[in-house]
């Protein structure tokens, strides 16, 4: 309930400010709401949201898979860690914009470049977290699994993944937020569709109503994914922990 009140106060404050300023640059909730509805009806908004969401999912998946493999290798093998650590430092400190420009110049202004640029931006974050996860794997449980001759599948499913679960949750949550922010930049620079593209063209027209309506829709979508997908998965992975008394 408090959340709803708090949200209502935010919207009321916005409406009040818009009424006082009376400017094109700060449209009220009603104007934004009408724009949103019109865009929803015309199919424009769902189309661009779907483009963006598709890119988010694919680049997120690529970054997670590569990051888990690389992070696991670096956490388990000292040699791999020594060799790959300088690269990781470079990747971690590379500005997102530089990666995006490189990808568009070398690969071309296409979907592959866009998705790769986003994935590369997220990758080092996954590697760093998963490396810690691999370092924290319990050697005693590993020994137990070997003594009882667990199959590889059993070992991965029942011994390794549950130990990785908190690290996976941490990097999917932090990762999702990085990915969707960078996807918009990538779309702004070099894609003919997606939320970032629309925001870019609305910016050149100073069309604040459209910018706000897309931004709000996108934030709502991300909150829904977070609340209905990421958090329940996390709770499921943690149900064995003793509840705090």
């Amino acid at each position: 309930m408090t959340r709803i009140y708090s949200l209502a106060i935010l919207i009321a404050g916005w409406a009040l400010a818009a009424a006082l300023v009376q400017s094109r640059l700060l449209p009220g909730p009603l104007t934004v709401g009408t724009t949103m509805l019109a865009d929803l009806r015309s199919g424009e908004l769902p189309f661009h949201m779907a483009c963006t969401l598709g890119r988010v999912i694919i680049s997120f998946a690529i970054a997670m898979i590569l990051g888990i493999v690389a992070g696991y290798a670096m956490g388990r093998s000292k040699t791999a860690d020594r060799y790959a650590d300088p690269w990781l430092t470079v990747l971690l400190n590379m500005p997102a914009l530089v990666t995006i420009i490189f990808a568009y110049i070398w690969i071309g202004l296409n979907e592959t470049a866009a998705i790769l640029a986003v994935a590369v931006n997220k990758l080092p974050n996954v590697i760093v977290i998963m490396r810690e996860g691999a370092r924290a794997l319990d050697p005693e449980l590993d020994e137990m699994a070997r003594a009882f001759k667990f199959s590889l599948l059993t070992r991965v499913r029942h011994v390794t993944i549950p130990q990785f679960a908190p690290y996976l949750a941490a990097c999917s949550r932090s990762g999702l937020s990085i990915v969707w922010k960078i996807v918009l930049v990538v779309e702004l620079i070099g894609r003919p569709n997606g939320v970032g593209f629309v925001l870019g063209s609305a910016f050149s027209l100073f069309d604040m109503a459209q910018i706000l309506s897309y931004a709000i829709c996108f934030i709502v979508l991300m909150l829904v994914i977070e609340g209905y997908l990421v958090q329940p998965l996390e709770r499921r992975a943690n149900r064995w922990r003793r509840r705090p008394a």
Partner: protein
Amino acid sequence: MQTAGDAAPLELCIESKTYLSADGTPVEVVRGLKLRLEAGSFGALIGPSGCGKTTILRIAAGLDPDFRGEIRTPGAGRLGIVFQEPRLLPWRTVEQNIRLALPAGDSAADLTELVDILGLGSHLARYPGELSLGLARRTAIARAFAGRPDFLLLDEPFVSLDQAIADRLRDELVALTTRTRVTTLFVTHDLDEAIQLSDRLFLLCDRPTRIIAEKSLPPSRGKRDKDIVASIGDEMRRLVSQMAAG
């Protein structure tokens, strides 16, 4: 269920086992250890804390291939093991923990009898974090027996339990090993416990460790009363002090 006749004895022959300590100097833990345990019998390794008992057990379990020597394990190599700490998977229930140790084709096996003997019946759906140490140890023992092992290793499974619970668990262990006739090697630093449980005693010295005395005990294990345990204990202690003097 298998009988004593159809399995080979356990033979351990560790010429030398060395490991590198944290500062890089090699430490020899075991030298010239020879052990033979008849199939279906219960052997106890007794030695002072830190003498390398756990090292020997890990080698017998095939978990540590880095030693000079030879091991021959009884039966088809189905191993059951109880570690010093229960080593349960905290994210799986008691029942899942036990079932995971079953051989691949046997994952639906009936565990009722085993679970009843160990008094785990009402705890199957709980997670290890909710169990007392005694119950966690019972779960670890159930896991070791669930796969019908033909070779069983136990590493001080009753330390830091209170006396009454430890006594009950010892009785349960005797019952289970007698029923299944599994070749068992039990590690402990408690001589009385070893005398109570086993058919054969192996006494170890400080590191680098080897067997300094062996003794077969008369039947039947688990039913020896206090006086017999005490007299065998005195005899063993005398033997050890003689060896130390000579």
